[in-house]
């Protein structure tokens, strides 16, 4: 199978929520066929690395195959959250897109939804 490297944004969507200094970020594949590859590649370690600069200390991943989706809970990801962060986004609501942009995955092109700009960019590149 011909595998390509793309940002997670090409194959999944995500939503971030906060409680105190903890962030939770769901990662949901557009196509269920991509789920197993995402479970394999989007690990707790890689997620923790994305938040290292914020001082995150631990990541717990919950795998929900029936949806399918993963839920990541990231401890101390929010510099105190709305209680004490000096940043614009104390809730960390934009962090879902940090994850979608920073984490790269290797998938068959079939895991990218038809009509996705990532597929079109690839098709144009090959021409």
């Amino acid at each position, binding site marked *: 199978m011909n595998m390509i490297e793309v940002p997670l944004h090409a194959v999944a969507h995500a*939503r971030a*929520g906060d409680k105190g200094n903890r962030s*939770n970020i*769901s990662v949901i594949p557009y196509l269920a066929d991509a789920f197993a590859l995402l479970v394999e590649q989007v690990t707790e370690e890689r997620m923790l690395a994305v938040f290292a600069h914020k001082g995150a200390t631990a990541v717990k991943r919950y795998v929900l195959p*029936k949806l399918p989706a993963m839920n990541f809970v990231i401890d101390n990801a929010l510099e105190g959250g*709305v209680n004490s962060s*000096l*940043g*614009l986004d104390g809730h960390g609501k934009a962090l879902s897109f940090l994850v979608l942009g920073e984490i790269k995955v290797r998938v068959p092109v079939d895991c990218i939804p038809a009509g996705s700009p990532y597929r079109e960019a690839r098709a144009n590149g090959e021409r």
Partner: protein
Amino acid sequence: MSKVHIGCGAGFAGDRFDAAVPIVAALANVKGERFLIYEVLAERTLAIAQRLKRENPDQGYSPFLDIYLPLVLADCHRHGIRIVTNMGAANPLGAARRVHALARGLGIRGLKVAAVTGDDLLATLSEHDIRREPIIEGIALDDRPIVAANAYLGARPVADALATGAHVVLVGRTTDAALSLGPLMHVHGWQAGDLDFLAQGTACGHLLECGAQVSGAYFPDPGFKDVPDFDRVGFPIAEVEADGSLVITKPPGTGGLVSRATVIEQLLYEVHDPHNYLTPDVVLDIGDVEVMEVGANRVGVSGARGKAPPSTLKATVCVDAGWLGEGEISYAGPNALARAELAASVVRARCRAIGIGEPVRVEVLGSGAIFDSNGRARRPPSASAAEEYRVRAAVRSANRKVAQQVSDEVLSLYCSGPAGGAGVRQHVSPQVSTASILIDRKRVKAQVALVEET
């Protein structure tokens, strides 16, 4: 025919003011028991409400009550749609009296209004007692004065309030899900031991509590997740049967989208362990939940499992946290990034020179700074094609003067900063910090009162 319809008109204080109008029109056309809920109480909101109540004992309910309810009260009463909301905030009894006054102004007769109280721990416990409870989340309380302390009540008191025949039920702090689960317990007769029913009802409440976040809002990503007629996004309606069957939909004629993807995003929103979502009514396990599209903009949600609830309730304690001072200024056009970075370095140097001891964050927005930490940038900023950057400085201080001083250092860049600085905005605002504690549920007594017209 025991299908219950629940529409959600607001997912936070400040949500779209007229969102409930199409919901009321849709609910007017269906049979059975119908409810309209509004969720307007974030963690900090109660502290602000508590302060207002101290200044005036008639106040302390949500200021959004006067914005949301006059638009729907008459139609809801005419069509038998009952309203359940946490607009009671720090003063559910005062809110109930205000609803009577609004009803009078609208010519509505015979409105029954109930209030649920008992969440306010400051009314029943000493500050000393509150400080002794273990903190599970948030800041240390130290000796800072407590502004508000409220336990999260469950759905039982909401159901009891509806059992009085009230057309409008005003609560203060309850779980957001209780606004939906209360009506379902009331109509379907679900009891404390019906754990899987309570779990389905809690999942329903969780999906509705953020308003349009389940029906296409907070979702669009153009080219990837497109939502039709998004400016007219319809707020959600849940249909729930006595056996817990649940469908999420939205009013006909509205924009937005209810799909597997919109529902799954919201199902996991602000959830930590999906197998143990703790509420006062039930511990919800969504591990086996299945989400299925059953029609156009109709999504079925099944398989929520319940376990017995914990013996403690979560309570939020709010303390005064001083001031946040912010200032912003923009740089655009050729060499804008260099000018913005020079401006940022000037603000940093000036804050040191005038003796600001608190940590000051100075960042260049437009270079991905929203993802940075207070101390560290993720990567060096690169000049963007747009060539527009905004310098932002922020500080937290117990002292209002310090907050203002840092903000003013940005203001001074108008004349004393790099070339072309433009569009300064300043913001100095009082802050509240929160801690979550656990409290034995036996120490919290919810009460229901029908509030008479005065």
